[in-house]
């Protein structure tokens, strides 16, 4: 009887643990998972200000500007349909360049500028998010656009 009791308690503890872990996992996923968005989706209002997200697009030609501190850069990310200004402070990947793809982790600021914490350039072999593979298809840019 006692052993059976013990087993029941153990099973109950395990069940509670699993349920708790499930709730923990689901809530953490809801809070922390970052959506991948294109500039057009951002413009369409799919993201909230301050919500962690990942922005993917091409760096518009002629848009990269360096601030005088030598560290902050501003550029425009575009998908051919819409454009979002991006600000980033830090060392950009070597392959980050105008007219090439990039993915940025960060969040939208209330003034409509995307503040990036990290930038990943396309062809940067250090990291290629799976989303990158699809970019050339849905992103046709006329030269000099």
């Amino acid at each position: 009887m006692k052993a059976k009791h013990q087993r029941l308690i153990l099973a109950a503890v395990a069940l509670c643990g699993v349920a708790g872990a499930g709730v923990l996992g689901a809530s953490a996923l809801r809070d922390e998972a970052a959506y991948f968005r294109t500039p057009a989706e951002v413009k369409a209002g799919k993201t909230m200000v301050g919500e962690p997200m990942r922005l993917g697009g091409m760096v518009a030609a002629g848009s990269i500007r360096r601030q005088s501190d030598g560290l902050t850069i501003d550029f425009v990310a575009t998908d051919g349909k819409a454009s979002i200004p991006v600000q980033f402070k830090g060392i950009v990947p070597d392959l980050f360049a105008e007219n090439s793809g990039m993915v940025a982790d960060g969040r939208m600021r209330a003034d409509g500028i995307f503040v990036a914490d990290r930038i990943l350039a396309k062809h940067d072999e250090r990291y290629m998010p799976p989303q990158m593979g699809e970019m050339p298809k849905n992103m046709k840019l006329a030269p000099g656009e």
Partner: protein
Amino acid sequence: MIAELGLALLWIAAALACLSLVVGILYVRTGKDDLAALVRPASVAQGVLTAVAFGLLITLFVRSDMSVELVARNSHSLKPMLFKVAGAWGNHEGSMLLWLTILGVSGALVAIFEKRLRKDTLVATLAAQAALSLGFFAFLLFSSNPFKRLPVAPPDGQGLNPLLQDPGLAFHPPTLYIGYVGISVAFSFAVGALVTREIGPAFARAMRPWVLGSWIFLTLGITAGSYWAYYELGWGGWWFWDPVENVSLIPWLAGAALLHSVSVTATRNALRAWTVMLAVIAFSMSMVGTFIVRSGLLTSVHSFAVDPERGTFLLALMAIYIGGALTLFALRAGTVAEGKKFALLSREGSLVINNLLLTTILALVLLGTLYPIVAEAMGEKISVGPPYYNKVAGPLALILCLVMVTGPLLNWRKDDGKKLWSRLPIAIFAGAVILFGLVLFGGKVGVLPLLGMTVAGIVAVASLAPLWKRNLRRTPLPTWGMVIAHFSVAIALAGMAAESAFIKERLVAAAPGETVKVDDYSVKFAGVTPTAGPNYTAIRGTLIATTSSGASFTLHPEARTFPGLMGTAPTETNEAALLTRPGGQLYVVLGQPVTGDDGTADRYQLRLWWKPLVWWIWLGGALIAIGAALSMLGRAQLLEIWRVRRARKAEERFA
């Protein structure tokens, strides 16, 4: 000729695997002894032939035989020798052959050395191992032939991803693979024991060295991989929760759970069904890992251009093995007799909680890794990053560490709560001192790092308790192993917590001659010089770091450019410079030149970190592996045989 010979050997080895499987099934069904005699030699021969084939592939890379497609695509005649050799497995086909080699050699080792198991269980185990090999042979021979010749040999090869040209690469994948595939033996033992219904201490003891062994390699592989990512990527982090990292962590978690539960089965004959289940889960997880990485499901540096056909093939293999094993388990689980009983407050009880926590963390990491893939299949693109993992795994890992404090101090079967408390005062005192010290003098520290350091202190003290009042020379090796491994967890945990709590970062654009302060160091940027390596050119920065006590050190971070070979684009990498000090590491990255108004580069971007105690993380990782190795050594059959023989000889002398 070498390539053709290699391919022929692979076919013969595949045929031998087929033979082992068929004979094994026949033997288990009919029980005819003359059949069983075939399985051992066939397993050994299969392992040897596969290993020779792998050796031939390495020979092709060493000779830079560009008529072989794999060599032409992944090597270059000018590459340093170490990378020519490593190039043999730094690609899809070669790494699958390595996988098969380890699978075959493991089977051969079981066939040669395993003497404790009942014969039918051993034959069933070898047949299961052969079944695993057979699937991967089919995969290799039909869709990823490493020995394929080109109709016309190119003048030279295409080289190897420069990022992978690092001594780390030479050892990282093989180490992880030995870990991944070593668990296959545990899987095969589980299948074998399920088939013959021999699930008990003998089976657990036969399985344990393989679990420990593969877990040691996984630990070393993960630790080395973490350090590699730390200094090679130049991002300053040591763990990114990248899917590729996660799929190595998941089998490691399963292995950690398994090596604890297998001890319970071996010592107490309890948790029998659970141990078998875990063995199946552990290998399933390493196959899931291989599948995710190899199929190109994730695109990162670890997946070498892959096609969907291969992904489907691997998925099918995985479904067959995991599905088959789980079905067998479902059929037989009911007949597994209940193990020995134990109270909740006992060593078994705490190991059950350890297992529950480890599998929960495993499930949550797996969830985070697979969720983006599932979401993408449903049309939503999502990335799950460090915030998720830190939130779910951090607290659970801390609770796990607390269980680690009490577990080894409890008696088997049942124990007394009050007695447990009486064993803990020093550890709790140590934790309290750290906690109050940090709260009072530590400045602003996050909750998780604060708890992390506190728990590390408690674990460090409590892990030594099993040695208390013991004759250290007579303490069995496995106990030493446990103590060292648990103590090392405290070291690693302290490193992780201290690094995240007290890290200092500076990001500047500095002109030559400028000085940057980071923590205790004044770092003077002396300037840059162009330089050249064996197959790259680089801009080399010179920085002089001076401590407040006057000690001075020179650092040379580099920005390297590897020329594109055979029309591929050039690749650039940032080579961080590290200064290791007793208190931590100074980490410097040279960024891009900043052009001034006159169009010349007058400043350079520099990123500097002071990372307190960061190297404790890898020291802890390496020591955990050493602890596990002692544990394994203490239980090794060979050692046992030797000890018994020596004891017998000594007795004979006195007789």
